């Protein structure tokens, strides 16, 4: 296998050396390392974002197909037997006119989709896809992810306000209250993760779940309440059904993005699906062992960790997201608030205490 890739690798190294020499010639030996570093980082960012966009496009197709099957329909099956549907949608949205309402605040109206997209993409910088496959292996990775994802709400709020529309504003208000509420439960769930892993570094969190028993070493067993709460709060944070009151077609038309059309709408759409993949990935990394194999390491073939396991886990969690949407009716707003504040937060606080006590006893077998 590696013999096939060796010429490719050699060629890559050669090209990289060529680029380095070119930059030294262009900028001098002082500035060249900075420029080379910038080029390398940009290339890595492209390596993460480009597959992400493809995954996102096909996630929309998967969602429509799966919901179709659950409702005994075909789902998209016309454009290239359904396989080209996401591309057709993309072209359609690109060709549509972007309409800016007369009373809207133009600058903020255009800024809002960008503010929704930025955190959804920026959080990927610290996500480890494998033991060495991480763009920025920072110490406070978990905190960084929380801080960046907490900024996603600005896109929704700014969109709601800048549209100068009552429906959009109602959607924004609903969304703001909901996201701030569920962030607390989510934060407490993450406190549990960092207690169990003894680290804020995402790579170390995954490595803390490795062991001889495969899936039994993962954190979803001792942290089961946190796993469930993180999953549900993740659905609420991404404004997905059954927590999609910010859009609520039957109540407030389309909520915060009712005035958006064409590409500005598409960016909101992209941001929602990328956040979905992000939440699913974080869930897999923190509770389902990231790139680790679910089978004991001693087993042949399936015992090795690798990116394919992470992909399978993310796929599983995404299917859950779609399943929820196809199955559950939308929550009423007061029930959402009750669930967040009166159910999730008490459960997390109690389980943090239980976990703290549990970790002091010999019954705690997840130590590394």
């Amino acid at each position: 296998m590696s013999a096939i890739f060796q010429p490719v690798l050699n060629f890559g190294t050669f090209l990289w050396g060529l680029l380095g020499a070119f930059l030294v010639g262009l900028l001098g030996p002082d500035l060249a390392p900075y420029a080379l570093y910038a080029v390398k980082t940009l290339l890595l960012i492209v390596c993460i974002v480009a597959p992400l966009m493809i995954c996102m496009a096909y996630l929309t197709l998967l969602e429509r197909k799966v919901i179709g099957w659950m409702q005994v329909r075909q789902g998209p099956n016309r454009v290239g037997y359904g396989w080209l549907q996401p591309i057709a949608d993309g072209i359609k949205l690109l060709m549509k006119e972007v309409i800016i309402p007369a009373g809207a605040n133009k600058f903020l109206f255009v800024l809002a989709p960008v503010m929704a997209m930025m955190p959804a993409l920026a959080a990927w910088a610290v996500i480890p896809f494998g033991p060495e496959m991480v763009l920025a292996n920072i110490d406070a990775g978990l905190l960084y992810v929380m801080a960046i994802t907490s900024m996603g709400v600005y896109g929704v709020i700014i969109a709601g306000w800048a549209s100068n529309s009552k429906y959009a504003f109602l959607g924004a208000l609903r969304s703001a209250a909901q996201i701030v509420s569920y962030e607390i439960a989510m934060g407490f769930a993450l406190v549990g993760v960092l207690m169990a892993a003894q680290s804020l570094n995402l790579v170390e969190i995954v490595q803390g779940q490795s062991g001889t028993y495969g899936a039994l070493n993962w954190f979803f067993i001792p942290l089961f309440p946190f796993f469930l709460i993180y999953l549900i709060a993740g659905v609420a944070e991404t404004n997905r059904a059954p927590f999609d009151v910010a859009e609520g077609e039957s109540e407030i038309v389309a909520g915060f993005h009712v005035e958006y059309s064409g590409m500005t709408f598409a960016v909101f759409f992209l941001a929602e699906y990328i956040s979905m993949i992000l939440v699913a990935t974080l869930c897999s990394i923190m509770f389902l062992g990231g790139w680790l194999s679910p089978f004991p390491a001693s087993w042949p073939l399936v015992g090795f960790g690798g990116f394919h396991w992470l992909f399978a886990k993310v796929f599983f969690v995404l299917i859950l997201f779609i399943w929820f949407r196809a199955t559950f009716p939308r929550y009423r707003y007061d029930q959402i608030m009750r669930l967040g504040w009166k159910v999730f937060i008490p459960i997390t606080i109690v389980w943090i205490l239980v976990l703290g006590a549990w970790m002091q006893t010999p019954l705690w077998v997840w130590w590394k």
Partner: protein
Amino acid sequence: MFSTFIFYAFSTVLIAAALGVITARNPVHSALLLVLAFFTASGLWIQLQAEFLAIALVLVYVGAVMVLFLFVVMMLDINLAQLREGFWRYLPLGGLVGALLVLEMGTLLWLRFAGTEMPPPLPAGYSNTKELGRLIYTEYVYPFEIAAVILLVAIVAAISLTLRHRKNSKSQNPARQVEVKRADRVRIVSMPSEKREE
């Protein structure tokens, strides 16, 4: 040299945003510029290798406090003329407070930090988060816990001061809703079938 450039770039943005907060005519713009100011300040802190404080600033102020701020500001019925009415009346007082703040800050910085060299670069494995946690939970554990309790009391007080039970407000008890049995709601009546009259 590169970090100096970044420092000045961030500082320029920070100062411009902070000026914008007090000069913007629309309160929503002010609030958003304040968000920008917080974010830029956290960038500066990251440059000082205080990554925990920087991320906490974004998490707490940008992610939560300013969202609620915006939430309130957006719902205000903004009357710009009224907002700017008392400018000359409040100018002397505001100017005095501002001058006092500058004076205090200036003395502090001048007395404490004048002539201090940059600290030596930190070792490779240094984790700001770890050091901060160690200090807070060992040396300063009592002040930290007491501060936490004071904050908790403040939250409870704020809620209990503003919570009013209206007599005519309708509410549901979810526990009772869950307890309901089928027999409480549905009564099946058996009726003999009747012949239709022609």
